[in-house]
């Protein structure tokens, strides 16, 4: 075996070993890499009352109730729901059916007391006219596609439910991939 061959195999094996080690480490610490819990995660791994954590999901349709500075809404992953109370200024993108990440504590009544609220944007980009025409023609598929595999459901499971237009629907009206 020549020196070059030796170095080639050495580096190849080294990279494989490194990849394996990294994969093991990431699998082991996977839970702590979650930026937020979904309501389903919360069901599986209950958090102690009063412990601070982040809760993420969609703002349930029709659940937003503003009373002065305080706002009540429900965070859902379309499987489980958690009621949330928040006092303060909401981000611009906060609206029903949109993703949201809140940070705070669960109080004994099961309501999540949020200290701050971040809006989570989804991966869909389109002009207003396209969004309007999708809604008009009924191609705006609410309740399917999207969120099940984009971090709102239980990790790895396919809840198959979401509240955004599917990419297929976008391509149907605008030509899609050039």
């Amino acid at each position: 075996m020549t020196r070059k061959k030796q170095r080639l195999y050495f580096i190849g094996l080294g990279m494989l070993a490194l990849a394996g080690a990294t994969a093991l480490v990431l699998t082991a610490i996977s839970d702590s890499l979650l930026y937020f819990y979904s309501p389903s995660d919360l069901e599986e791994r209950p958090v102690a009352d009063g412990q601070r954590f982040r809760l993420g999901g969609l703002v349930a349709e029709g659940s937003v109730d503003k009373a002065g500075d305080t706002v009540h809404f429900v965070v859902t992953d379309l499987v489980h729901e958690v009621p949330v109370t928040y006092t303060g200024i909401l981000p611009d993108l906060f609206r029903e059916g949109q993703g949201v990440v809140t940070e705070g504590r669960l109080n004994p009544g099961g309501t999540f007391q949020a200290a701050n609220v971040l809006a989570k944007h989804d991966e869909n980009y389109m002009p207003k006219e396209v969004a309007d025409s999708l809604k008009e023609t009924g191609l705006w598929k609410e309740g399917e596609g999207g969120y099940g595999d984009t971090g709102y459901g239980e990790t790895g499971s396919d809840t198959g439910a979401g509240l955004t237009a599917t990419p297929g629907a976008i391509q149907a009206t605008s030509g899609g991939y050039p």
Partner: protein
Amino acid sequence: MHRYANPTRFLRIANAILPWSTAVMVAAFGVGLAYALVFSPPDYQQSETVRIMYVHVPSAWMGLFVYTAMAVASAMFLIWRHPVADLAARCSAPVGAAFTFICLVTGALWGKPMWGTWWVWDARLTSMLILLFLYLGYMALANAFDDRQRGAKAAAVLALVGWVNIPIIKFSVDWWNTLHQPASVNPMGESGIAIDTAMLIPLFTMALAFKAYYVTTLLLGMRREIAAAKVRALRMAAAQG
């Protein structure tokens, strides 16, 4: 591969490519910027803020692409000891670092109005910050030794080891819950292309402009390094003569 390791042959090829890559860069930047900043439509939710995407997303792609190119060049240098491969890796690092930095800054500027925060420590943002540190570490290490060859070897090993971060960045949004949204352009994945054509064209044009910029600066940088090596060799010869 060995044919291109010859600096003279490399210079001939580089000089032939340079005018073309420069022309593509200028044309793509002209068309891409006009589309991205003026002619493309505002988004249905983000309105004009969407224009940040035309710089942010191609910068992120560049950060990953340039690092991968740097890792491949480093492997070629370690295995076959091609000096030109070392030059390619050395000249890639500042370009990749600059685009990673642009990606992080434009992301923060977008995050404040859209998410309501400049920065969060989620898996995507954190792994991208680590990429910037890997670039900076590579540059520091490559120039840390008086013996250029030792610096080149140490930095090449760092570039290869750091490459494990690239798939982590790419798939962080799929593997873990993150505040960052999943990929909008993901032809292999289930979500496919989630960007309207009117926005996809300026995005790809900008990506082409960034890639052409990389090729142009890389070739110019390598040409400069080869000239510098010649000067060093001549000075050595003069000092010894």
